[in-house]
């Protein structure tokens, strides 16, 4: 029974009339590291977002580049990876890369290894979507911009990085926000290989506690707290960054 209530008589006296009831309702949360689990989710999201932005941009550059081999590779990569369920990708990093090929990504403890494998899987998967978003952004940049860059004597890489990509990025802040929100929620798949993020904790709590609806609501609220500000902030950034023509 509620040990906390008995320990805080003064607070009970000054608090609102139903304080006891509220404390009893949320009592089962004791002993679970909710914030810690969501912090792992945040770390997974940020690292995977950074990684997939870089890899996705490289893939997009390959897809529009002049080298047929690179175009073919990037094309095949995107079409294969985005059509495989993320669970399979994540499981492959653990079962295929780690347990079969002994690739541990420099980690010693299981938690570190699984965390890094999950980031790798999320990057590999999300990059395919980032690539397509950026490629659609490249298509919004008028051909004349690249022609003017080439006419000045810029080489392909310079024309891409100095003229085309900066404009492409500004036009795809919206689509990239969608990818980032999807990524935030996709990190829950990392639970499949035992990364101690929010979804794994939720599973554990559902097994041990009776308040199923409440648990779902708490985790749903947690994810909305992560993704809603992302959407609002990036929406504002997108408007600020838009290129005027």
């Amino acid at each position, binding site marked *: 029974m509620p040990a906390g209530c008995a320990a805080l008589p003064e607070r009970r006296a000054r608090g609102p009339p139903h304080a006891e009831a509220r404390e009893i309702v949320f009592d089962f949360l004791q002993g679970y590291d909710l914030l810690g689990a969501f912090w792992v989710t945040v770390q997974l999201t940020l690292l995977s977002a950074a990684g997939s932005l870089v890899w996705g941009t490289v893939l997009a550059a390959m897809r529009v580049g002049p080298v047929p081999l690179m175009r073919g590779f990037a094309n095949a990569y995107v079409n294969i990876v985005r059509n495989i369920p993320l669970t399979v990708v994540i499981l492959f990093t653990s079962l295929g890369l780690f347990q079969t090929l002994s690739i541990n990504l420099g980690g010693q403890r299981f938690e570190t290894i699984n965390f890094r494998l999950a980031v790798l899987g999320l990057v590999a998967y999300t990059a395919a979507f980032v690539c397509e978003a950026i490629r659609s952004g490249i298509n919004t940049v008028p051909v004349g911009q690249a022609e003017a860059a080439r*006419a000045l*004597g810029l080489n392909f890489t310079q024309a891409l990085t100095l003229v085309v990509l900066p404009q492409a990025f500004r036009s795809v802040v919206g689509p990239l926000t969608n990818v980032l929100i999807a990524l935030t929620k996709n990190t829950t798949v990392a639970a499949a290989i035992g990364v101690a993020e929010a979804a794994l904790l939720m599973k554990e709590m559902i097994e041990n506690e009776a308040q199923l609806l409440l648990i779902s609501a708490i985790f749903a609220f947690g994810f909305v707290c992560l993704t809603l500000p992302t959407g609002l902030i990036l929406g504002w950034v997108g408007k600020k960054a838009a290129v*005027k023509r």
Partner: protein
Amino acid sequence: MTEVSMAKEDVASTADLVVLKSVNKHFGALHVLQDIDLTITRGEVVVVIGPSGSGKSTLCRTINRLETIDSGTISIDGKPLPQEGKELARLRADVGMVFQSFNLFAHKTVLENVTLGQVKVRRADKKKAEERARELLDRVGVGAQADKYPAQLSGGQQQRVAIARALAMDPKVMLFDEPTSALDPEMINEVLEVMQQLARDGMTMIVVTHEMGFARSAANRVVFMADGRIVEEAAPDQFFSNPRSDRARDFLSKILHH
């Protein structure tokens, strides 16, 4: 083809800056350039005119290889146009180009537009590049707009910035691909004046245009194209007062009488 071009070919080849020899190009089934021979000497201003679809823009764009050609040779300052790569980039830096739709870099300020090539291609010091950029912007009359973005400028101002951007590379030759065709009528003159000044300063220029006034006043030679061929080449006075080919007479009768 005509006396003018024959005479030009006899001049010492060092004076020839741009030489096209039997250039052919197809767009699918369309033969857009048919056996084009054209030589432009240093300091010469050549105006290319002709009905739309005659291949004049394509001709202009083949000279810095924005369009590839199917056969023939194009050489600039004695060197044949290289394949895509470092060599080509270096050559393009020496050939200034001004587009019909300006094509200023939309995400960069006017000043950045003019310094970009100097810094990234010529490896110029950033300070010096900015000095040079401001000097050029003053020269084309848009010095006060240096810190604005292209979208904040009028078409005429944008095109003058585009000319400054091309000049910043110290090009050997300038290509103008219908530079006034996208402009409101009242802005055409401000751009033509800058071009006329350039011509007076001795810049080698190839100008595709519909501005017959400019052709008359600034050109050394008029090249008339129709259906992918050079039909007639002549000095502007001679061409406008006494065109030899029926095709040119027909074209001029349609544009000059209103």
